[in-house]
């Protein structure tokens, strides 16, 4: 059991991801207020993206922009991938952040329409008013 904890402690990013993921998941499912549910959804999606980017991190790695001397260096084929952060997760994260905001926009539109129809943001009152 000990080596599990020790392995987990070597990865602080994974612990932070698990805490955020469970927190977002719990709030998204269990909180009665619709807007708080959406905040939980936002946290859940951000935690998945957080894990995705921390995988791409390399110790002492610069941002993946080949400027000036690196540009010249890359002409002569000596780019050493170890000293640049891994660009692929950044691309996936960019896409996922924009998907997250798009889903947020649609869900807030639904919340506004529900409020306009039923006048409350609390799930239990809404269910009562629907019957």
């Amino acid at each position, binding site marked *: 059991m000990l080596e599990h904890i020790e392995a987990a402690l070597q990865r602080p990013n994974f612990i932070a991801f698990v805490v955020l993921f469970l927190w977002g998941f719990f709030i998204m499912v269990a909180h009665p207020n619709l807007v708080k549910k959406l905040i939980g959804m936002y946290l859940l999606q951000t935690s998945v993206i957080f894990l995705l980017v921390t995988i791409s991190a390399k110790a002492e790695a610069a941002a993946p*922009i080949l400027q000036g001397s690196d540009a010249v260096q890359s002409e002569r084929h000596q780019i050493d991938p170890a000293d640049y952060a891994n660009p692929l997760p950044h691309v996936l994260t960019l896409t996922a952040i924009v998907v997250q905001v798009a889903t947020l*926009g649609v869900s807030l539109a639904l919340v506004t329409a529900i409020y*306009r129809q039923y006048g409350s943001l609390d799930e239990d009152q809404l269910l009562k008013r629907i019957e």
Partner: protein
Amino acid sequence: MIHAHDSTIVRTMSRLLIPLIQLFALYVLFFGQYGPGGGFAGGVMLGASLILGTLVFGPEAAPCLLAKKLIHGDGIGLMIFAGVGGLCLIGGGEFLNYSNLEIPWVDTDSRRRYLGILVTQIGVAVDIAVTALLIVFSLSLTNNSEESHA
């Protein structure tokens, strides 16, 4: 719900800020290939400057009217992106393969790809700016201010 903001400090500050934001957005958009930023960040900042304009100067002021005009062009950004991608299909290349776009005075493949990336960034920026405006305007629509966009 959007009515003109009354305090003069906010109005003068935003009158100074809005052109600055737009200038910086264009910088971020066009220099997205040399430094951080790009289509997504530039587009949202363009949208944000117009949103700031409508929130501060009210629905009758210039930024809001411009925004209302822009809203109807919600497919243009995507048409630019898919259009450039589709142009690569001519002459048998794969979809979105910028290297066989026939640009007259450009010969090397990498330069064609560079220009392809630039144009698609503009498409993405236009699309995300218009959608940000679209969502803000429809979210801020209340029962009384009836105006329909279809």
